């Protein structure tokens, strides 16, 4: 099979309570494909963190998951404010989340570091004022 299987989700930025739904659905789908629990866990954590980030910082966006026999790519795209200093954003504990977000238990500064930790590659394409696209890959082999 040459063509990738695609799961597309619109991540709603207005509705904070729905954040995390796309990763839950992806988890179900990957289970149906018979992937190992360890792989499913890595993909779902990375995707969950990315989804939460889009809701917190960028008023939502889109999440696309591409599954092939060799790897899973997760592409998260938003039209948010962009990341000013990527190196700083990648540091554990660094966060620009507001106090109200922190009061909900988010904004611990672990989002991007976790996304990197649970995937085999992480690529950040960001333009301040225009948006961010994050591409993550989890290898299946």
């Amino acid at each position, binding site marked *: 099979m040459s063509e990738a299987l695609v799961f597309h989700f619109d991540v709603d930025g207005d509705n904070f309570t729905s954040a995390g739904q796309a990763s*839950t659905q992806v*988890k179900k789908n990957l*289970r149906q494909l*018979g992937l190992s629990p360890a792989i499913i*866990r890595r993909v779902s954590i990375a995707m969950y963190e990315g989804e939460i980030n889009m809701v917190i910082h960028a008023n939502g966006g889109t999440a696309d998951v591409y599954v092939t026999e060799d790897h899973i790519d997760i592409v998260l795209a938003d039209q948010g404010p962009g990341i000013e200093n990527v190196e700083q954003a990648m540091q554990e504990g660094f966060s620009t989340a507001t106090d109200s977000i922190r009061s909900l238990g988010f904004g611990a500064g672990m989002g991007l570091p976790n996304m990197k930790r649970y995937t085999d590659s992480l690529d950040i394409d960001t333009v301040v004022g225009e948006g961010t696209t994050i591409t993550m890959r989890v290898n299946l082999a």
Partner: protein
Amino acid sequence: MTSSEYEHSVRLDVSRCTGCTNCLRRCPTEAIRIHDGHAVINDARCIDCGECIRACDNKAKKAVVGKLDRMELYRYKIALPAPSLYGQFDNLDDVDYVLDGLLRIGFDDVFEVSKAAELVSAYTRLYLKTEGVKTPIISSACPVIVRLIALRFPSLNDNVMHMLPPMEVAAKLARKRAKEKHPTLKDEDIGVFFISPCPAKSSYVKNGFADYKSQVDEVVSMSDVYFALISKMTRDDEIVSMTESGMVGIGWASSGGEATALFNDEYLAADGIENVINVLEQIENGNIPPVKFIELDACTGGCVGGVLTVQNPFIAKTRLQTLRRYLPVSKNFLGPDEQEYIPDMYLFNELPEYKPITRLSDSMVESMRMMADIQKLRATLPGIDCGACGAPTCRALAEDVVRGKAHLEDCKIRTNPNK
């Protein structure tokens, strides 16, 4: 054992089923379909939670558990009352009236599950201190949760505590006590009867945990025992006190009771199957506070919310609070020489193996092709999840069609767009 050979206690009485869709959408694992005018339960997916029993207005879904007349089969009968039983009675001010009543309906001995629960709590405190255990530790007391994790949350299987539930510990201790009191008794003479608030305990007794075989002989319904008891129970003061439970043991009947008994506030307790599934999803996502212990109860309110109980769970819980008020915290303690390790009799080795029950095909390529077909098909369906086709959602129908288990024409809306 394959999951299809799992012996369930939640069953369908086809003659009573009208093929309505009440249970269809309440099933948390999408194990139910309506075919040929009646419900069909997929054994591989069913976790015996009892949600369909609650949802059914026609009493077509029922819990298949043992009857009290099974007592005739044993020379020496021991009752194991779950603590939730104590919450079923109005104006009960002493647990002993219930224990005495159990002797009056023909049991030779009574061993309180709440007594065993206090020992399990004591050993769980020890378990929490064990080096190398994976945290958060998830309680193994609710059999629905253990099966749910094995089927749906395999990455959390290693977090499940390898401690036997209080019912099982009670069964072992009760047998031991019976043989000590009556040395002539043989194993087969003794009948251990668990008085259960839920059908899942019965499934657990029939199937065990992987290679573990239960020491309980019969699981009987709490409501059956309740009705047998109310005519035989006395409220006189002239009864012998037998109870060996404190606040901790009785507290196990409601949600949070097991967790608070650890005297450690780093815990999470959730009840109700939808809440529990949501919490498990969050644990998998790594999105929970750093707690050491997680108590999950499939039924709302905890065991007092089981489908075999008589009383509303919140009323039962309030009654238990009254009963617990003047009790010591615990009546069962570990001796100074018992603080070192957890004896084998409290532990089990193997959890049920992960079964990828929802997987579409053994081949990944084939699964991907099927998934693509499901997505295409799903887009052509009305998306109102009405259940008229016999599947709980449009997505589920698309999946059934691709799996060859249903036809696209089953969709009533799609076939008759004008009606």
